[in-house]
């Protein structure tokens, strides 16, 4: 069975990928077009329930919730993508290096530093950064990104260590190849699957973390729209305008659910053991 065919047959992946594509598409589309201008206040039409004109209703300034969710997707996705990027760009080389120099002082230093960073949840990092520099979306990116580094470093090291004991790595060493070259030629291609799966998981965790940070005011600041802050603003009006809280929440749930399903699907698709079993 071809890879494409099995991909199309993997229900988790297809459902998840469509959710994810929907929100990424909405975020991209929001640069060109939104049903209403999210920066324009329209007080006469404030707090409208969902209707034919405003599909998801309006907020206390009369802004269109649907348009705000589209623009908010940008912030969430951008923060999460950059944070995963930071985690991969810094974490993977650290993990590869630690594995290549197993039990050396360098390995020890890298791994102990990882443990240390791991003791700081993203929120605590954000609290420290905000306490010193003030709140912004950049803080959220840095905080989540730093938190991602040890996640990728640990995963990479663990997977690389088991590969280093494999005979094909030994043959490469017999062929006189250096550790960095072996890491790039033999180790990295074989952990790519794991990286993709872990990346999609961290992506979804990043969306959740960004929402949480914005909710408590440590992330995106006005006027930058963000799902987390929409929820924070809705809180005082929740008893008479629940739609303000419901739609951004659903947007978060569907994006995260989509990414998680996609990750599960990818794991099945990319796992060579399962692929063999299907043959």
């Amino acid at each position, binding site marked *: 069975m071809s890879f494409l065919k099995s991909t199309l047959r993997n229900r988790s992946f297809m459902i998840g990928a469509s959710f994810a594509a929907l929100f990424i598409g909405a975020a991209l589309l929001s640069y060109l077009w939104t049903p209403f201008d999210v920066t324009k206040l329209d007080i006469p039409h404030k707090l409208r329930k969902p209707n034919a004109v405003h599909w998801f209703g309006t907020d206390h300034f009369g802004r269109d919730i649907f348009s705000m969710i589209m623009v908010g997707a940008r912030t969430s996705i951008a923060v999460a993508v950059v944070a995963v990027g930071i985690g991969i760009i810094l974490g993977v080389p650290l993990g590869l290096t630690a594995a290549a120099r197993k039990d050396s002082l360098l390995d020890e230093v890298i791994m102990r530093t990882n443990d240390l960073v791991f003791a700081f949840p993203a929120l605590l990092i954000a609290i420290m950064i905000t306490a010193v520099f003030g709140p912004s979306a950049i803080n959220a990116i840095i905080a989540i990104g730093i938190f991602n580094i040890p996640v990728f470093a640990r995963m990479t090291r663990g997977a690389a260590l088991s590969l280093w004991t494999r005979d094909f790595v030994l043959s490469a060493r017999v062929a006189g190849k250096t550790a960095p070259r072996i890491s790039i030629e033999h180790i990295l291609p074989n952990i790519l699957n794991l990286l993709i799966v872990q990346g999609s998981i961290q992506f979804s965790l990043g969306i959740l973390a960004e929402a949480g940070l914005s909710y408590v005011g440590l992330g995106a600041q006005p006027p930058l729209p963000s799902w987390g802050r929409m929820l924070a603003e809705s809180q005082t009006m929740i008893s008479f305008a629940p739609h303000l809280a419901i739609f951004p929440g659903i947007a978060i749930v569907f994006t995260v*659910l989509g990414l*998680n399903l996609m990750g599960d699907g990818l794991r099945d698709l990319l796992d060579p053991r399962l692929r063999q079993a299907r043959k």
Partner: protein
Amino acid sequence: MLRYSLKRLLSLGLSLLAASAVIFLTIEIVPGDPASYMLGINAQADTVAALREELGLNVSAFERYISWVGGMLTGDFGTSYTYRTPVVDMIGDRIMISLPLAIYALSLSTLIAFPAGILAASKRGSVTDVSIMGATQVGVAIPNFWFAMLLVVVFSINLRWFSAGGFPGWDKGLIVGLKALTLPAISLALPQASILARVMRSALIDTMNEDFVRTARAKGLSKRQAMWRHALRNAMIPVLTIIGLQFSFLIAGAIIIENVFFLPGLGRLVFQSISQRDLIVVESVVMLLVFAVVIVTFIVDLTYAAVDPRLRGRS
């Protein structure tokens, strides 16, 4: 066992020391002069000088770090600039809400996750399994603070079973206090329980495929007996790891959830302090939370040894 514990204890101490250095560097060194940062740009020169004196900024950074760590070891966390009260008293009050909340949530999530995970694993592929896994998939995706808001809408605003927020104080009785923490604990526990149930299920399924389970079956144990007597304890090793890792998410979650329910816990304290630029309080609360994460890792390490004789070493 003793040697293993001592080794873990040593690494606990080193982690705390390193963490304190990172926190001190970020909060007291990076902003340049903490005194003028805390007072803002419009501060008078003599006020800044007075604060510098009070914070002991006139000595070297290293000496300040030593005296900060030394103070914490003796229970002196400094004095809040905004409230003019010892930080340790402020934290003492707040921790009586945050700590019970975290423990409440952790117990709830374990109580939900273990049976759910075990049930799903033992009926793998059945409707029960698929429904439990579907529910956890959604549970993982729901932001806990949003779930908290929904709980407030349903149980406080519509059904009026719980109050929408605030904390009456433990002096009103244990039941009253716990009731006030119930909705926050449920909203914190839901995503945790979902993750834990998934890990429990996959760990059990993996362990059930191990050779020693087959050996047990060959002895005449039924599938159920093999799972309870052999697989479960081995599956606890990955589950414990996740409980340890999740604790830091739990702490982060608690800080956010306190905001939803207006609970006067450490989370509220730290956000107030940030807006008031009270770095001394921020520093202490962050250190305390990191301490909690590290301590939990230590406890998880000790539990590993209780579960797995290979870690205890030869006696």
